């Protein structure tokens, strides 16, 4: 294939309208990339405000009410408008058709619609930052959200509601595309594991998101019309809201982490020059995580007043999720064994993912244990745990994938030394920020307060210092990736010498991806002719 095509998807047409009305999955991916980066920066600023306030035990930067709005906006923006769309909307949109040898997703117009829905929801939700704020926490617990909060809960919930349909449409598009549009010879067990991960994610998006939609709609109705759906005074049950909310919002954790696991599988194989060890198990573990993820939502409610029996069942089921998660970690590690490993930036993020996800996953088992959970519930231990999964896991996968496929997205190479340095700084900054929070939580510091006893200050200073390092680490890719657009060396079609159909088309790819539909004759990751290490 040619190394540089005259008419790539980037320069095939010009003007703002050619982007805003595009149906090209690759351009829509870039629209998502730009908007997600902006919302990530916004969510990061809210986090910065939180860490700055927590530098000292007293509330000397903002009032408790302002602090409540800060952590709520941080959670809402980061979860609904960054992490949930992140890998699927950017990398998935770009790569799913390329990896399966298709010219586009099955429904290009729906794909564009989903970006508009995302933008509408996200913009509506962030306008509350200047129209009264929102202080319910990202979880919108009733009856506080429906009755007592004096902040702009309506607009925030409506924003999350609208963005939910964006997520549903993306998932629907992926499922149909993966089922119906694979190239000849590309059987299910020749698919890249990135595709398996996105298929499992899409199942969750399609099945779980409608339930949170109805839950948020009921909250909005209750708040708007003063009726008592979750109001105990009228016979309603606040716990019912928590059930409906977590029925989506726990699986949503797997919407965030599964696509990143798919990214890590691709990177580990490419930078170890080996087939993924136990391909079938890694593929099915994605489906197992998606399935089990639907059965564990009650572990968020151990101390909410659900029955002891329900708590026991949810505890046991939560332990089960560790099995497919561990299958992935062990198989990635086994893939490294006797591989010829190179430590480029994507690989650093992937290795970071394995380590941090393991810590996040193991502390998740602490929290699934009923007795321990009573002790650390609503403390910084929980905050640290889910940031190890969300940042150390999901975000590391996103950044690793962005670095891995950046030459394909843009046709440009970034400076590798800077990229490696940034990965190292982000890793260090992340651990410095969040590891002290495990200790703080175990010592009993509760989450969501803007003041704390003085003995917790040292660890909080560490955490805030780490957040500053992390902030610098995030700025570095922003600078050198933007720099590369203009000044980076031109990338050929396969700069990593990797396997996969996406590396067979030029960088950046032509508008319709493939001049003729490719025929696939080999399994994924056929790096070594005689692969004795694989299953």
């Amino acid at each position: 294939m040619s190394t540089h095509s005259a008419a790539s998807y980037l320069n095939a047409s010009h003007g703002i309208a050619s982007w805003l009305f595009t149906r090209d999955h690759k351009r829509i991916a870039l629209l998502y990339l730009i908007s997600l980066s902006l919302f990530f920066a916004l969510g990061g600023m809210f986090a910065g405000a939180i860490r700055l306030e927590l530098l000292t035990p007293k509330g000397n930067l903002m009032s408790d009410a302002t602090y409540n709005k800060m952590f709520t906006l941080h959670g809402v923006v980061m979860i609904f408008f960054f992490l949930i769309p992140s890998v699927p909307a950017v990398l998935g949109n770009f790569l799913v058709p390329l990896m399966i040898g298709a010219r586009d997703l099955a429904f290009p117009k729906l794909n564009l619609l989903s970006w508009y829905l995302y933008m509408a929801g996200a913009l509506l939700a962030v306008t509350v930052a200047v129209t009264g704020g929102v202080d319910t926490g990202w979880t919108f617990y009733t009856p506080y959200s429906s009755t007592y909060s004096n902040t702009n809960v309506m607009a925030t919930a409506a924003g999350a509601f609208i963005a939910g349909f964006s997520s549903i449409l993306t998932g629907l598009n992926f499922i149909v595309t993966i089922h119906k549009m694979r190239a000849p010879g590309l059987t299910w067990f020749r698919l890249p594991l990135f595709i398996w991960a996105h298929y499992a994610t899409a199942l969750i998006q399609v099945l779980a998101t409608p339930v949170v939609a109805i839950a948020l709609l009921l909250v909005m109705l209750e708040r708007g019309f003063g009726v008592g759906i979750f109001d105990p005074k009228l016979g309603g049950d606040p716990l019912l809201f928590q059930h409906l909310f977590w029925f989506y919002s726990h699986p949503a954790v797997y919407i965030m982490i599964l696509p990143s696991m798919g990214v890590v599988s691709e990177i580990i194989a490419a930078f170890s020059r080996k087939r993924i060890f136990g391909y079938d198990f890694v593929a099915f573990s994605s489906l197992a995580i998606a399935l089990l993820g639907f059965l564990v939502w009650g572990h968020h409610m151990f101390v909410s007043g659900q029955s002891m029996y329900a708590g026991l069942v949810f505890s046991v089921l939560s332990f089960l999720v560790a099995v497919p998660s561990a299958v992935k970690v062990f198989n990635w590690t086994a893939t490294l064994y006797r591989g010829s490993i190179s430590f480029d930036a994507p690989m650093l993020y992937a290795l970071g993912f394995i380590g941090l996800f393991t810590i996040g996953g193991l502390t998740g088992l602490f929290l699934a244990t009923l007795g321990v959970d009573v002790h650390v519930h609503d403390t910084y231990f929980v905050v640290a745990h889910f940031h190890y999964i969300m940042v150390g896991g999901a975000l590391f996968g996103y950044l690793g994938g962005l670095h891995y496929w950046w030459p394909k997205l843009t046709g440009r190479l970034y400076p590798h030394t800077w990229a490696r340095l940034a990965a190292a700084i982000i890793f260090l900054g992340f651990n410095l920020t969040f590891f002290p929070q495990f200790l703080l939580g175990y010592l009993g510091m509760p989450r969501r307060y803007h003041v704390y006893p003085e003995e917790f200050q040292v660890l909080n200073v560490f955490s805030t210092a780490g957040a500053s390092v992390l902030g610098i680490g995030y700025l570095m890719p922003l600078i050198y990736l933007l720099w590369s657009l203009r000044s980076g060396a031109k990338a050929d079609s396969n700069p990593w010498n990797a396997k996969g159909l996406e590396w067979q088309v030029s960088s950046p790819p032509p508008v319709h991806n493939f001049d003729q539909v490719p025929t696939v004759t080999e399994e994924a990751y056929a790096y070594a002719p005689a692969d004795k290490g694989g299953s």
Partner: protein
Amino acid sequence: MPEPHGALAQQFEDLEQQHESATLGMWLFLITEIMFFGGLFAAYAVYRSTHPEAWHNGSRHLDVVMGGINTAVLISSSLTMALAVRAAQLSKKTALLANLALTIAFGAVFLGIKAIEYHHKLEAGLVPGRFFTYVGPDLDHLQLFFLFYFIMTGMHAFHMVVGLVVLAVLVVMTLKGRLLGDFYKPVELTGLYWHFVDVVWIFLFPLLYLIGRHG
């Protein structure tokens, strides 16, 4: 919803692949709808089990004759919808138009009867919130029942309105000579949606109107 208007879109290899994708997409969309209504039905089930008296009591306030007539109307509309799909496949333009028009008419009758029922509830002071002026025992839980009555039937009615709009678009397309023979797919997909909305009502009717009627 996918919108194949017959011509082959560039991302597909052939019409068969395009049709299969559209059908799968619609079924997936209906699954998301099942989950959406499923959340409501789950909430209904929880409250019915915690307040069985109020639920039976509330059910007796509903007009089972009007509900019954509406059930018959909606089932009839499903029949005409199915006949419309058949007519489109056989390229019978007049029959297609007639059946689409009948489906729209049945849908409109359903919504009309529903509006009359809503009006009666308003007059009786049974609309939750500040309109709830009904006097009787266990008012709070009765109000909760009527909340679910209005949310569930309201959500169903909203889906019917969407369906009517899509059916109207199909009528326009038919008048322009599309949707016949090989291009019947939009009619079939709309039919799937319409039948789904009917099935939701088939569950709503007994769960809301009939639970207070035995014993």
